[in-house]
């Protein structure tokens, strides 16, 4: 289990097709520990698929995926994915909270049921995390009783409760009202500042420029350009990047 380089996440030449539709055409990307990398790009360019390959939700057709000491492309069984999933948490655009459990139970469930941590200790941790995402007092609300922004922050607390090394964010503000976007972004910014390794797919260009160490622009299943935010936003090299930025900025 030797790492080919020092990165925490290493993707090399990954390809993925759905039926005859080739969605990823050779993605290579490295993310170092503590780094925050943003992925931007047009809809359908494969951004979500990249994230799902990293935590093994989608098996890849070709290429190399390593997260820490796990060689993800070599894991064949769902059971083998478990140690990886403890290390990598994911937050989704549609929150995907469990609607039949309260906010606090959502945060506590996986650490107790999957990691088999002591419920009392998890409960304390969960309450602290709810406070951290500024939702103290909402512990016993059901997801259906919370606003989108609040649900998304519960989802972030749920991810954090697993004590992951990496968090993948997939357009977590895309389904939110403009007012609540800010709260969620603030929460993410704090995580990045604390040194959490984050890979974020986002449409929030201002936010990407502020928090990212590096921004990758994807188009048609390829990473077209990858650079620090100032360089990518101010002096994009590729014409496709320029065109995309002219449309969204």
């Amino acid at each position: 289990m030797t790492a080919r380089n020092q990165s925490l996440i290493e993707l090399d030449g990954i390809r993925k097709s759905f039926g005859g539709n080739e969605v990823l055409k050779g993605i290579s990307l490295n993310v170092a520990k503590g780094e925050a990398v943003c992925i931007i790009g047009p809809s359908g360019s494969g951004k979500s698929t990249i994230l799902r390959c990293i935590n093994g939700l989608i098996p890849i057709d070709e290429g190399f995926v390593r997260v820490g000491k796990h060689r993800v492309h070599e894991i064949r069984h769902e059971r083998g994915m478990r140690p990886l999933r403890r290390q990598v948490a994911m937050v989704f655009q549609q929150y995907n909270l469990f609607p039949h459990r309260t906010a606090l139970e959502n945060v506590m469930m996986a650490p107790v049921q999957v990691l088999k941590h002591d419920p009392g200790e998890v409960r304390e941790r969960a309450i602290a995390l709810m406070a951290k995402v500024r939702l103290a007092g909402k512990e016993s609300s059901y997801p259906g009783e919370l606003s989108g922004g609040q649900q998304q922050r519960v989802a972030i607390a749920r991810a954090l409760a697993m004590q992951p090394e990496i968090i993948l964010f997939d357009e977590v503000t895309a389904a939110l009202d403009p007012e609540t976007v800010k709260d969620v972004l603030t929460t993410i910014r704090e995580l990045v500042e604390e040194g959490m390794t984050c890979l974020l797919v986002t449409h929030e260009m201002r936010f990407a420029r502020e928090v990212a160490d590096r921004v990758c622009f994807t188009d048609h299943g390829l990473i077209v350009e990858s650079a620090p935010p100032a360089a990518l936003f101010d002096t994009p090299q590729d014409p496709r990047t320029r065109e995309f930025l002219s449309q969204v900025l």
Partner: protein
Amino acid sequence: MLTDTRYQRRKRLALLAILGAAIAWIAFDALLGGSAEWARVISRLPLLLTGSGPAWSIQGGFAFNVLMGMLSMAIATLLGLLMGIALLARNAWLRRGAFMIMNFLRNSPWIVLLFAMLYLLPHRVELFGTTLSFSPFFKAVVGLSLPTAANFAEIIRGAVGSVHSGQWESARSLGYGTAQIYRQVILPQALRRMIPGWMNLYALLMIATALATVTGVQEVVTLLRTTLAMESETALVYFYLTVLLMFFLYCYPIALLARRLENRTKGDAI
């Protein structure tokens, strides 16, 4: 919302009008001599309900329909659960087999299945020296529970499938295994959505118990066709009306409750 409440009000008015018309018709009919026929029906009511004349012991009648319905439903729930699990199994052969059986049973006319039971199940079997005899009641229960089980399996599959795929994704990304995802995430949500369908199915099954008359079981329709067959033709009209009313009064509240539960689960998040 507005059109919705207006629709509800109209519906209620229409129902009241129908009820009023029915009462008016009964009153009018009673004046024309129908009351004698009603008296006949009332004197035979214990028979219709329990299958035994004046004494209130259960030998058949509508009570048998209720009993058959409950027993069949219990068996169907168990069988349907097994079939539903097979439909969701990872093993493709098991899944395909269950799928074929389910579709075969779901698309067979119930009355044909009941007739089939009549000829497929023997009258008696010898097992380890003891003789088991299959009564018409037993055959009816088996015949009714088979299609009901298939329908319940489909309800289970539908409810499980209706849970948003994001629930699977997020549970998997939290490290849950498949069995754990079913137990902790999918089934608790699916169960709520199954209950209305299960209740509707029971109401449907209850109505179908009338078909069991073909097995010769002494249920209410059989009584109408045998013991009560010598009543006058006009009286029989009243008897049949009464039986229709019995089924309606038993099944309609169940359907109403199911619909109310269904509306409530619709409001669930996701």
